[in-house]
């Protein structure tokens, strides 16, 4: 029997760091003020691992992202914590070009094992840089894997998979979920990249989502449970994406709503809609419906709480596909 206890999302990520740094000397991490712990997932790691493995850097995102690439090429397994994922945009060339495209372009010879970490998410009233979710932009660039957990269990398992992965991975976590609690085994386990998870079974409509929006979808499913049976699929990883799991669900429900906290235009939900159109058209009894962030910059003030997906918007989309 496995031992499990309640951990917060950040504690679960931290546990993955500890396990993997104990297991593998080559793993180290860099970031701005990670030793003190700008966020709790890197707090108090220096007593065990030292300041040479938990490295505080100047504010120099392009340099640390590029340094991770270099260190990985020389056999280390770096983790770079950007703090907010929005700060990683300073390192656009390193993330989108150098890290993502290195392996393929250089003859698929040398694996590039590194993990970028960033927090993101709408709804905290802090506007664009401290909210923006980069997964749509990331998956546009082949060569980097991208994941985001919705539970502490998934957080630990996905982070372990990311650290062991032989490719660049961008691990995103939702800032509003920092203190979300859930059971986490003490055992070693991974949540493989590219494996979706059915977070709630249902027969009428499939809601595909990830991260914080899994919880919006679950709340909506609970609210409508006497009327509509909703299956909630947590993508967990955007690239690779588990299309088989989605299609298996659609065989049953024949209706799809995608809830995506990122911008609607040309993002994850647009990509999946196109894939369903091309490869799963016959499975559908209604057009796909999306609930996303509108196509304007993420506002702050009192606005982001209602400009992002809400239970009301998800409910309305579900009712639309059921008509």
């Amino acid at each position: 029997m496995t031992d499990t206890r309640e951990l917060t999302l950040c504690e679960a990520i931290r546990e993955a760091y500890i396990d993997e740094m104990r297991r593998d000397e080559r793993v180290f991490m860099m970031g701005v003020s990670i030793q003190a712990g700008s966020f709790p997932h890197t707090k108090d790691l220096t007593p065990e691992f030292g300041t040479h493995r938990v490295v505080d850097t100047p504010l120099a995102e392009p340099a640390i992202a590029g340094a991770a690439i270099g260190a990985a090429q020389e056999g280390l397994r770096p983790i770079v914590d950007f703090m907010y994922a929005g700060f990683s945009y300073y390192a656009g060339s390193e993330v989108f070009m150098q890290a993502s495209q290195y392996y393929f372009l250089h003859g698929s010879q040398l694996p590039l094992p590194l993990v970028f970490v960033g927090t993101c998410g709408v709804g905290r009233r802090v506007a664009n840089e401290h909210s923006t979710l980069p997964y749509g932009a990331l998956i546009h660039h082949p060569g980097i894997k991208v994941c985001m957990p919705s539970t502490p269990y998934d957080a630990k398992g996905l982070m372990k998979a990311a650290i062991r992965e032989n490719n660049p991975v961008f691990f995103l976590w939702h800032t509003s979920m920092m203190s979300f609690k859930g059971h986490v085994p003490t055992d070693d386990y991974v949540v493989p990249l590219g494996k979706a998870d059915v977070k709630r079974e249902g027969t009428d409509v499939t809601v595909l989502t990830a991260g914080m929006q899994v919880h919006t979808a679950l709340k909506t499913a609970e609210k409508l449970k006497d009327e509509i049976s909703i299956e909630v699929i947590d993508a967990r990883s955007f690239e690779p994406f588990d299309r088989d799991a989605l299609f298996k669900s659609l065989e049953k429900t024949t209706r799809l709503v995608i809830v995506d906290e990122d911008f609607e235009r040309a993002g994850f939900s647009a990509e999946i809609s196109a894939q369903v159109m091309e490869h799963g058209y016959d499975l559908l009894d209604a057009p796909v419906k999306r609930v996303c962030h509108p196509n304007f910059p993420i506002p702050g003030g009192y606005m982001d709480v209602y400009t992002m997906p809400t239970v009301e918007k998800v409910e309305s989309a579900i009712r639309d596909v059921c008509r």
Partner: protein
Amino acid sequence: MQTTAVAAASKRGKASPLTDEQKILLFRNLMLAMALDRMMMRVIRAGRMVGFYHEGGIALAPGVAAGTFLRKEDILWPHYRAHGLAHMLAKGIDVKLYVAEHMGREAGCCKGRSSFHFSFPQDHVFGLSGNIGANFPMVVGYGFAAKYKKTDQVVMNCSGDGSYGEGRAHEALLISALWKLPVVFWLENNGMAQHSGEQDLFPGKEISVLAAGYGIPAMKVDGQDLFACAETALAAIAHTRSGKGPIFIECRTLRAQEHSVGNLNNEGPVKRDQKLMDEWKATRDPLKIAAARLIEEGLLTETVFTEWQAEADKQADAMDEFSEASPKAMPSVEELYTQVYAGKGN
């Protein structure tokens, strides 16, 4: 005083280049800046602010000095600490609109949609970025535009020591020097960035040494000494306005509290020394230092100090009340969709 700036000033004659009126203006600007800082802290602690606030504390003299002597058409990029309130009020900007922005109100300077960003384009203050260091490329553009338009505008580019980690800081130094742009690199160095101390940020204690590599003149000043900062600002503005190209000013200041409200107060893994910070507040408070100077020079009395202080607090409270009186900005998604692109160009 041992600063280069004051040494430079005293070379021109014993007296400070500051007039009595300027000293009093600076002093009252600092008083108001610190009153605003306290008011903002009350507002965020009461849960009435949206977004963040990063307390200024005893670090506001450089900002006041940087802003006070700018003309309306001069370009200012305020340091984000205390959210640039000191810099902007010193430049004569109606900062209550920015207070209202922090509270998500319709009266806010960005229509309540930005949390902590500001924009006063008519005052040549264009914005703030959540990404630290975003100022550097833009100030190159401001300087370029000033030269292109053949104006004598000065660009006051204020930011912290942390921002000089970014490559874009170094790129901006390079291009400003190369093109002789009218940019003041106004560094407010508190020896810290977030939860890291200077030993983890920069090899050496003085960041202004960077300037020499690009042939940019540099001056250092005690950031707790309002009048020394102001003399340096005057000299820096005169230098850039006369077409001599960029200049680098390093104000050494102090962070006597945590990075932001409710945050840790560490240097790396180690908690910072509370006693030392309390001592700074007691002995290195720029308002107390400046007040002592003014009293010594017969420009201020204890009674007037108390009167002015009360006035500053009243002014700060009035900005809070103004903001509270404005409705929370909650436009519809449809309305926001109309706001993404500007209208027709020409």
